[in-house]
């Protein structure tokens, strides 16, 4: 029966090619626009650490003077609090991080010196965030303890300096120090670059920089601070900085602490631990407030409004656009079905039930949806190609995955069936007697 309906639909669609083409075009354009923005939205609002993010937390305490930080602690930690919390080792894994730009030269490579971003962090970073390695591995806790001059580099930097060859054991000159490469990361592109997300609530929706690539050089926290001393970035300061870029004893927040807590009990314990730490520091007179905060990874991303407001606006716009395309299609389908009132009248007179007519019309709408879905898929590919050409940090992420591809077709068919519902209902109510009379 279904095959027969398909055949009928095909004949009917062929009869008025212009109207059919208009409908297919309308649905394809609507689907193309909404799937392009939906794909970007999906990429930007996704979980950067699927399956693990619920165990990752970002604890914060507040060392700033009273009245300085409003509405909770500042987004990063001062050096002393960060090192105190880290060295207590109360979490399953913990990583300190501090950012800077570093001058890099590879004595073995004939490439001019580069300025690249560097992250000084502790060894748990790689295991906690499941960083993939192409060559070598992370440094060991012993390396970190002995303040060894070692580094992990990104695959991108490895390509630029060593043409993608195994560079483990080679030497890099970072600022004025020689550093041995112990590991080369494989391609790793968390979206967003969650561990560097901060201050999003002050960004006025301009948050596309959160989708930047990971740093190119990773060094053990304490030896990294020595090697690139004088270049570290502060988040904010409430007093005078004696030596800019050397912030260990400055009245500034500039260090991030990420912890992994594998059970709810441990999360509760850690919250109690930082609350206790804040009270103790206030008793010592170092803290003015005892406010703390410990969002989970996903809570922290939401708190920072990571999805750029332009992207959200585009998504709304695309769906309004799809709605207009659907209205358009309802009108065209109505015109198409009612034009065939006489044919429907004959079929009813020959014994087709209202349900059968309704089903036939819906099959026809669905067929438009499938063809429109193919067009929509092609237009989505075109749209994503356009997004990749945009000068935004997340441009290279814009690709269609299998799930979104399936969604494209599902959306096209569902949308056209919805659009077909009302016209099909109208067509099935055609009075056969009246139509036969005027034949």
């Amino acid at each position, binding site marked *: 029966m279904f095959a027969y309906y398909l055949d009928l639909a095909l004949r009917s669609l062929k009869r008025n090619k212009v109207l059919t083409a*208009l409908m297919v*075009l309308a649905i394809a354009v609507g689907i193309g626009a909404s799937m392009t923005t939906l794909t970007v939205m999906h990429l930007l609002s996704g979980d950067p650490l699927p399956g693990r993010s619920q165990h990752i937390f970002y604890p914060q305490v507040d060392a700033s003077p009273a009245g300085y930080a409003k509405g909770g602690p500042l987004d990063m930690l001062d050096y002393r609090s960060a090192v105190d919390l880290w060295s207590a080792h109360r979490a399953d894994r913990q990583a300190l991080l501090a950012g800077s730009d570093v001058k890099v030269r590879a004595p073995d490579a004939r490439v001019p010196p580069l300025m690249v971003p560097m992250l000084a962090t502790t060894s748990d970073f790689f295991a906690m965030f499941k960083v993939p390695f192409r060559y070598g591995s992370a440094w060991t806790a012993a390396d970190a303890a002995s303040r060894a001059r070692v580094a992990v580099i990104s695959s991108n930097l490895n390509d630029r300096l060593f043409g993608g060859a195994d560079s483990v054991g080679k030497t890099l000159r970072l600022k004025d120090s020689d550093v041995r490469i112990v590991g080369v990361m494989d391609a790793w592109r968390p979206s967003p670059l969650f561990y560097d997300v901060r201050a999003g609530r002050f960004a006025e929706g301009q948050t596309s920089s959160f989708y930047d690539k990971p740093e190119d050089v990773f060094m053990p926290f304490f030896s990294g601070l020595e090697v690139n001393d004088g270049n570290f970035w502060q988040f904010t300061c409430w007093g005078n900085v004696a030596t*800019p870029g050397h912030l260990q004893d400055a009245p500034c927040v500039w260090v991030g602490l990420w912890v992994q807590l594998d059970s709810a009990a441990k999360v509760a314990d850690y919250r109690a631990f930082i609350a206790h730490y804040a009270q103790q520091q206030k008793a010592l007179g170092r803290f003015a407030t005892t406010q703390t905060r410990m969002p989970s990874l996903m809570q922290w991303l939401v708190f920072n409004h990571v999805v750029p407001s332009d992207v*959200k606006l585009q998504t709304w716009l695309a769906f309004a656009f799809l709605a*207009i*395309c659907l209205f358009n299609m309802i*009108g065209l389908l109505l015109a198409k079905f*009612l034009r065939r009132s006489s044919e429907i009248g004959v079929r009813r007179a020959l014994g087709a039930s209202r349900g059968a007519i309704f089903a036939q019309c819906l099959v026809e709408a669905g067929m438009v949806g499938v063809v429109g879905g193919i067009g929509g898929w092609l237009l989505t590919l075109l749209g994503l190609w356009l997004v990749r050409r945009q000068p935004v940090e997340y441009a290279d992420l814009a690709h269609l995955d299998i799930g979104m591809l399936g969604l494209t077709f599902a959306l096209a068919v569902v949308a056209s069936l919805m659009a077909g519902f009302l016209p099909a209902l109208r067509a099935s109510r055609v009075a056969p007697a009246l139509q036969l009379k005027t034949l």
Partner: protein
Amino acid sequence: MDILPILSTLRRHKLTAWLLILEIALTCAIVCNAVFLIGQRLERMDMPSGVAEHELLQIQVADMVAPANPYARVAEDMAVLRQVPGVISVASSNQVPFGSSSSNSNIRLDPAQVRWTLSATTYFGENLPKTLGTRLVSGRDLESSDFVDVDVAMKALGTGDAKHLPSVILITQTLAERLWPGQNPLGHIIYLAPTVGLRVVGVLDSLVRPNAYDISKAQYTTIVPLRMGANKDQSYLIRCRPEDRAHVLDAALAALKKVDPQRVVTTRRSFDEVRRKFFQDDRAMAGMLVGVIAALLIVTALGIVGLASFWVAQRRRTIGVRRALGATRRNILNYFQTENFLLATIGIALGMALAYAINLFLMLHYELPRLPAIYFPVGAIALWLIGQLAVLGPALRAAAVPPVVATRSV
């Protein structure tokens, strides 16, 4: 033109008529808001900088081998750059207008204030107002005796030694008016830190901040007489005639390389590029909105063509009867045009209300201002025009129906 017969016909096609009205309303609402958003972006992209934009170049170098005396290095670089043919003026600066990366200070009017009054950007560097081409409205420019080396000032901050701190500051008119409304700002003191009070000696006409994201705070700008060292990621700003820019840039880079062949050029661009880069997101968004508006209007026009063709086909016999009874081709044409005009008008009226609702939603979620009334007629005229254009084809086909149709198969 008789409207009543048209209305009574439309009453028999309620569903299709409402579909068309709703489509027009939705399109109208979105077009109004999209045009408004484009206007917003264009207004942002037009934000004045207060500097001679077409005459400026920015160069940033990183020294791989730290110079023995970073201040002497900057003085040497600036002297070398001044010698480059075509160069009118040279400045060193910690930041550039619209350059994104910025240095900001929390400004207090009283050293005892816990919470600062506002956050303003602080330009450091020599020869800035003259090179940037920003006009002094009152007071004086910074003089070489005002300047202090950044490192000396930083050390003095630590020790609380006021002698080695700068003592004066330049601010913009906008900032002066915000801090001391209606007063002469010259002589007032601004505190960048509780121990650092700077006397306002000059007022600048206009100078935009590097991080001008919020247009209302874009002119909260100060210039502090601090001399930059070569190890501070500072920029050299060069002013020359617009037509000389390309070769001055090349010659300037060659001159800087000659001072130290090992150094790496990290930034080299004209100010036009700085502006283009700063507003690239706005430009992309405006371009996308133009595309959306065009696509929407086309889709709506196609919808009108489709439905009008259907109606013409459905009413072929009626048209034939009217023609046989004496209606002219023009009457038939006018009939369909008026019908479309009526539908479009109802749609536009609904669309206006919807546009207002969408604007309220955007105001709530995206901090956009209220939609000015001027944007409503834009959407209305666009849709009336599109409607009339789209209906013209089917209406002409209707007018071409011969009266003889009336005699057939009735």
